[in-house]
């Protein structure tokens, strides 16, 4: 009769709802997209030292709207780990900078989305890009180049972050509108 009891237990195991499965599938699809963009960006010729368009962050913004802050935060972290494993930079300085920037951007973006009234994805992306750049500099100064003159380099790069953050916000808005099916 033991096998019957086991069968009964198996039968009453809770099954995830279709909605949960749909969200998990969306999360995985967005993660794959984010990792792909992360890897493509790493292989592109650099726009200049420290400067990247941050296209993978567009996916974090989309996840923020579609899946909520918790899953979007998990996606940002998972993207950095998976991307670093593929590129071969896991636990190198590049990885530490990437992770610190992604975490800072994620925290600032979610706080802005929750707390600032009337902010859109464009403003959220702008603040995320600025936080990403700032925290990368703080990390470099704290862990690698212990030299405060490094901060002289920051203003032009923050200006470039404003531009990339704004453009990524426009892109994220466009994609989320299309996904919601009410574009135009």
């Amino acid at each position: 009769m033991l096998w019957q009891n086991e069968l009964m237990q198996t039968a009453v195991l809770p099954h995830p709802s279709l909605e949960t499965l749909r969200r998990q599938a969306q999360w995985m699809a967005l993660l794959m997209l984010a990792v792909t963009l992360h890897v493509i960006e790493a292989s592109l010729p650099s726009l200049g030292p420290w400067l990247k368009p941050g296209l993978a962050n567009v996916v974090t913004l989309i996840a923020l709207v579609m899946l909520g802050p918790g899953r979007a935060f998990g996606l940002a972290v998972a993207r950095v780990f998976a991307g670093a494993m593929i590129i071969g930079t896991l636990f190198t300085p590049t990885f530490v900078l990437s992770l610190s920037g992604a975490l800072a951007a994620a925290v600032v973006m979610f706080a802005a989305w929750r707390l600032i009234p009337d902010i859109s994805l464009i403003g959220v992306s702008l603040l995320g890009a600025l936080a990403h750049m700032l925290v990368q500099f703080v990390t470099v100064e704290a862990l690698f180049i212990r030299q405060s003159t490094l901060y002289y380099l920051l203003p032009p790069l923050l200006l470039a972050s404003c531009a990339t953050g704004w453009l990524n916000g426009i892109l994220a808005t466009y994609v989320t509108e299309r996904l919601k099916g009410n574009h135009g």
Partner: protein
Amino acid sequence: MGAMRRKPHWYLGSWTDRLLLVLAIAGIAYTWHIALAMAGHGRAMVEIYRDHVLLAKYPLHGNYETPLHMHAKGTLGTSEIVLDNRGVYFESSPCPNHQCVLAGHKHRRGDMIVCVPNHILVTIRGDANALDAVAE
């Protein structure tokens, strides 16, 4: 959450976004102004650091018909830095991505080349700092 929000302009964003952009640009302009002042006045000098240790300091505009080759020992190995009449640049570096080498020549006050993996920083600053200039 997102659905409750008003639809912003597709590329100008909401008024809040624009206000944030203006505040950010104003803050950046102010810090840029401070950074330029901190880059110093007087004769432009090339300074090479490993972390906070000053390894070498040379005038940027010297007679460098024969380029000056400097070797900075960092965490990964030795970076070769060259100073010639066009400015300063990384000739070689043991770092994996060679971003420092790709940065090319630097010749303006406030310019900087950073090699994060090898912990080497090359900066061009005035030999009199901003406070000295104010005192003059």
